[in-house]
């Protein structure tokens, strides 16, 4: 039985420390929607998504009131669209539009799954599909796209990496009037997971059940507050405090996920144990690292502090949930974390340090603005480096990079809302094009041969 102290602690977490359920994401299989023509498929997709997710917004709002915990985002992820459009890839934008229309009808925040999985090879229909991503992201509001370019098991598809450098640039170019916002809705992965509830990289894997509910929890502010109460704890104790806090946060997520699945007649998928920051003060992962004793995130000691945080979050969360999945760890997006924004503006954190951090945290180079004239091959090289970290370390890595068209180092992109703002950061100006233009595949690492 809980005590009075427990009740007040929970309320303080919500009121003062930004505890929330970051997202309820319904994964929907669209495989049953494939028809002879793009037009019929698009209609079928629209109808299915609207029917399956009809009550997601209301259910989230009810649960939020009943439990007294805000549920920030309501989202849908779908089967990678390239699989639906194999016989009419040039008409894939029709499906994209149908999905965006469905997202607007439902009143959800984002819909993910305008995606292709090309980690081992790229069929012609997939190449055509990927080439539709820029115009689709430029002409839709709530649709997110992702492409998996590598995996530990299959290596890195450098043809796809080369193409994605160009795609990032084209998306940015087409949306330059909005600070290249389109690129914030596109992510390239290595080791993409099939049950990720977070955007922009959510899609519903073909190995998943027909309709599932995945929930992403959050709560950087709660972790920071718990550490603040113990300013003299050594790092062993600090790790324990993080674990205990992650346990409580995840239990809230597990409860909401199971109840939401029941009410929405879907299967309970997973809880994603991620510390996802927002640009709000008091909701920052960087602030946790600074609370641990770093003057500013990005300095020496950042990687080890992040490694400890990430591991402790997982240990606490895994105990608290019956099914854990998704990305599960601490996110370090630059534009969505006030501590990271400040460090970047002050020149205290570099792209190189961020890359090092991604080898120990859950995702990758996230929401980083770079100069608009950065060559596509340089962006491909950044993606290839990141994919290598994922491939060798058996983990998901991703790149969501914004080539800020018309802007240079020191300028800023500003998206507002949860996407936040980011200073344009410098990239190395040496030329990587000869390496990228070689193409081919980087073979899978030796330790992937486990059979």
């Amino acid at each position, binding site marked *: 039985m809980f005590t009075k102290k427990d009740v007040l602690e929970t309320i303080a977490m919500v009121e003062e420390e930004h505890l929330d359920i970051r997202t309820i994401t319904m994964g929907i299989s669209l495989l049953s929607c494939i028809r002879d023509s793009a037009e019929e498929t698009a209609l079928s997709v629209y109808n299915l998504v609207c029917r399956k997710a009809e009550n997601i917004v209301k259910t989230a*709002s009810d649960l939020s009131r009943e439990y007294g*915990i805000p549920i920030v985002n309501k989202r849908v992820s779908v089967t990678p669209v390239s699989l639906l459009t194999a016989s009419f890839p040039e008409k894939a934008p029709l499906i994209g539009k149908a999905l965006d229309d469905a997202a607007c009808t439902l009143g959800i925040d984002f819909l993910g799954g305008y995606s292709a999985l090309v980690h081992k090879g790229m069929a012609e229909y997939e190449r055509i599909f990927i080439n539709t991503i820029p115009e689709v992201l430029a002409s839709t509001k709530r649709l997110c796209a992702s492409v998996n370019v590598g995996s530990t098991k299959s290596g890195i598809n450098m043809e796809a990496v080369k193409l994605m450098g160009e795609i990032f640039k084209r998306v940015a170019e087409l949306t330059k009037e909005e600070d290249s916002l389109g690129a914030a809705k596109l992510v390239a992965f290595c080791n993409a997971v099939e049950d990720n509830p977070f955007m922009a990289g959510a899609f519903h894997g073909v190995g998943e059940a027909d309709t599932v509910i995945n929930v992403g929890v959050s709560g950087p502010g709660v972790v920071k507050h718990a550490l603040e109460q113990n300013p003299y704890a050594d790092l062993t104790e600090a790790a324990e405090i993080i674990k205990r806090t992650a346990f409580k946060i995840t239990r809230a997520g597990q409860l909401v996920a199971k109840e939401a699945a029941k009410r929405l007649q879907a299967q309970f998928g997973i809880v994603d144990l991620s510390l996802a920051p927002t640009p709000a003060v008091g909701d920052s992962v960087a602030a946790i690292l600074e609370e641990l004793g770093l003057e500013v995130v990005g300095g020496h000691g950042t990687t080890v502090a992040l490694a400890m945080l990430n591991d402790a979050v997982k240990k606490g969360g895994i105990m608290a949930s019956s099914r854990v999945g998704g990305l599960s760890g601490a996110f370090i997006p630059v534009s969505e974390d006030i501590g990271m924004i400040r460090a970047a503006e002050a020149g205290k954190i570099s792209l190189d340090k961020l890359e090092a951090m991604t080898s120990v945290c859950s995702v990758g180079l996230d929401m980083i603005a770079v100069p608009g004239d950065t060559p596509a091959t340089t962006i491909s090289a950044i993606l290839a480096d990141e994919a290598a970290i994922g491939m060798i370390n058996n983990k998901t890595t991703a790149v969501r990079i914004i080539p800020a068209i018309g802007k240079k180092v020191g300028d800023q992109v500003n998206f507002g809302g949860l996407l936040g703002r980011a200073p344009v950061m410098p990239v190395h100006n040496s030329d990587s094009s000869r390496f990228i233009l070689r193409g081919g595949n980087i073979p899978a690492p030796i330790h992937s041969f486990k059979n």
Partner: protein
Amino acid sequence: MKAVVTVTGKDSKGIIAKVSTFLSEKGANIEDISQTIMGEYFVMIMMVNLDELKGELSTLAKECATLGKQIGMTIYVQHEDIFNAMHSI
């Protein structure tokens, strides 16, 4: 179904009466109540049984939040499961 009602704010006269009358009108039965005053700060936690609740819990939570604003307090109504989930193994 049980819920926890938490009322916090600056102490003033008649808070318990106003909140408990409102809950009783809605069909919520108060099973346990504890109240403390810390300085000028009032904290009351009630366990209520909602088996005879008229309407939905989410509606009651909304109405209580509105009542809180009217009487200058913050009122939460939360399903007990959230506390059981977060604070017990």
